[in-house]
């Protein structure tokens, strides 16, 4: 049991922090629903960071740390699946990835080179085609839907199970960072915005709610890192469940703290909260995670 990053892991985290610095501020002019940066994608590609899960000295836990760090940023690109799913798949699949779950619109589906398709109990994977169209969305990711079913062959159960596990870990690691990004942004607002002659953040009713959010975010991060490390189906389901449960609660709280400001596209809060909202339904949502937890953790 050791919560300290190794020297190699620390070096990666520091290098990612350096890249993150260039993408940490939001544009001053109004921006749209999503805030995607090709430059961020290129910087991560150039540094080889999408492959760290496959590097023996680093492994999936380092990739999960990186995903959490990068998910705090207002700018995004397809990171979590590329870092935590792609390198651990059988076969060589080109990034970016998108997950098409039961025919619903999916994040990054239009720009993805590989589609992972989930239909009920079946999981399949294959190269993306041009049978896809963007959809307008409130979610702060570029969303698109397939115009025809790709017809990939269903994967054998063991491979499908691995993919579901990896997707859950990716989801939890990303949510951990999104929660932290939303908390940081909200704390800044609460520290500056005054009502009744004092900063909002000095009111205990709000301080307690933010502290509870912070505890939840830390818990999600712990569970995500553990699940990345262990490769255990139960751990992955627990992490995803706690992520979706905690995010649901946090999204409401932070929007309450921001008032009308949080509803504008001028303020970045929606970038984190509407990314989380896109993730709340994935992998069957909380009900789906709970069934998995019961299957793997309450088996005996």
């Amino acid at each position, binding site marked *: 049991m050791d919560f300290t990053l190794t020297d190699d892991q620390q070096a990666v985290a520091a290098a990612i922090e350096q890249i993150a610095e260039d993408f940490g501020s939001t544009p001053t002019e109004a921006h749209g629903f999503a805030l995607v940066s090709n430059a961020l994608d290129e910087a991560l590609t150039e540094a080889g960071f999408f492959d760290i899960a496959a590097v023996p000295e680093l492994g999936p836990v380092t990739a999960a740390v990186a995903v959490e760090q990068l998910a705090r940023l207002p700018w995004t690109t397809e990171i979590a699946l590329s870092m935590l799913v792609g390198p651990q798949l059988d076969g060589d699949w080109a990034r970016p990835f998108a997950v098409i779950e039961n025919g619903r619109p999916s994040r990054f589906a239009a720009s993805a080179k590989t589609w992972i398709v989930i239909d009920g109990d079946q999981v399949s994977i294959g190269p993306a085609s041009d049978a896809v169209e963007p959809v307008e969305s409130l979610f702060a990711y570029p969303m698109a839907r397939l115009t025809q079913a790709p017809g990939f062959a269903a994967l054998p159960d063991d491979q499908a199970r691995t993919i579901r596990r990896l997707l859950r870990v990716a989801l939890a690691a990303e949510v951990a960072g999104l929660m932290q990004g939303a908390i940081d942004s909200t*704390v800044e607002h609460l520290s500056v915005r005054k009502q009744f002659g004092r900063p909002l*953040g000095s009111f205990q009713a709000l301080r307690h709610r*933010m502290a509870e959010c912070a*505890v939840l975010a830390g818990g999600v991060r712990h569970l995500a890192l553990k699940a990345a490390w262990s490769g255990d189906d139960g751990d992955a389901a*627990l992490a995803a469940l*706690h992520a979706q449960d905690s995010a649901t609660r946090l999204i409401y709280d932070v929007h309450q703290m921001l008032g009308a400001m949080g509803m504008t596209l001028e303020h970045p809060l929606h970038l984190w909260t509407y990314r989380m909202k896109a993730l709340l339904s994935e992998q069957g949502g909380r009900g789906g995670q709970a069934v998995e937890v019961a299957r793997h953790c309450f088996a005996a």
Partner: protein
Amino acid sequence: MEFAWTAEQQQFRETVRAFLAEHLPEDWESQAHGPGSEHQTAFSKLFCARLAEAGLLVPHWPEEWGGRNLDAWSAFILAEEMWMAGEPRGGQYMNVNWIGPTLMRYGSPEQQARYIPPMAAGQSLWCQGFSEPEAGSDLASLRTRAERDGDLYRVNGQKVWTSYAGEADTCFLLARTDASKRGISIFLLPMDTPGITVRQIPSVIGEGDIHEVFFDDVELPASARLGEEGQAWDIVRAALALERVGIPRFALASKTLHRAVARLKAEGRFGHGAVEQAARAHAACEAARLYSYQIIDQRHQGLSTGAEANAARYATVNAERAVGEFVVEHIPEALAGGETMLLAHHQRAIVAGIASGAAEIQLNLIATNLLELPREPR
């Protein structure tokens, strides 16, 4: 980053489990034993003496005080196994976790020689004289006073919610030595000193657990003071850092949850609603577990623990609550003549958000020290 136990740590856990299997009575789990009851206290002295003989009472203490210099992980593994087994050490867990180490750091040679060996032998029980009728979360407002009179102090006042006071031999007492906010000192007070009256407060948390303690002109020598006059806060802060992530409550909560789920499954009652609630409670337990392990890791490395320890404690409160609520909703008979183990967990879990600092105080500290939000005006 590494989430596995070492072979030595696993071995240590097995040793503790084997000890428990050998030395706990067969009907231990099905018996009700209020944590501060006369019966439990008597049992704890037998049990802790055997633990001491086996080198498992204070293994993380230095050798000069009867320990084996084992690390913070061993101490926590020991605590997990004991707590999961229903804490057969009773109130002596406090000696092991923080009273002993606090005396090692702040005690005079006479105090150490007098009090530490009986702790290491498993023969002493302490109580913690902190809370008062007017001083709970606002501990600094405590009124019990200790007035200096030559070589003596004279103590007058009242403590309340004091665990184990009925059976304790010594009190770790906080009393005011001057009127300023920080004018509080600590005294090591033998409970058989004339002028002390203890009354048990009947409660839902079990027999003999909480008390009122009255001090009427209780005289004690100046040598009973721990540290300097006015040093109480420094000492208490150090002690609470050990106590805050002291009881591994998540471990018993998790065991209880699994027990409850197994029962529901066996009875064909583990339906959809129960599945979701159980899964959430399990996630809360595992989050609390990892939070706590992170603090133990910091302790192991000799780092001071900050607001993350408050977060770990709050996560633990969430876990206790989730499991407690799950059992009440799905196995209500646990509170009505049902399974003793589930009832015992319920009674222990009630205090999770109160004992060693209310959960809301943890939230204040997290808001100020972790989030760095502006303080509330006073």
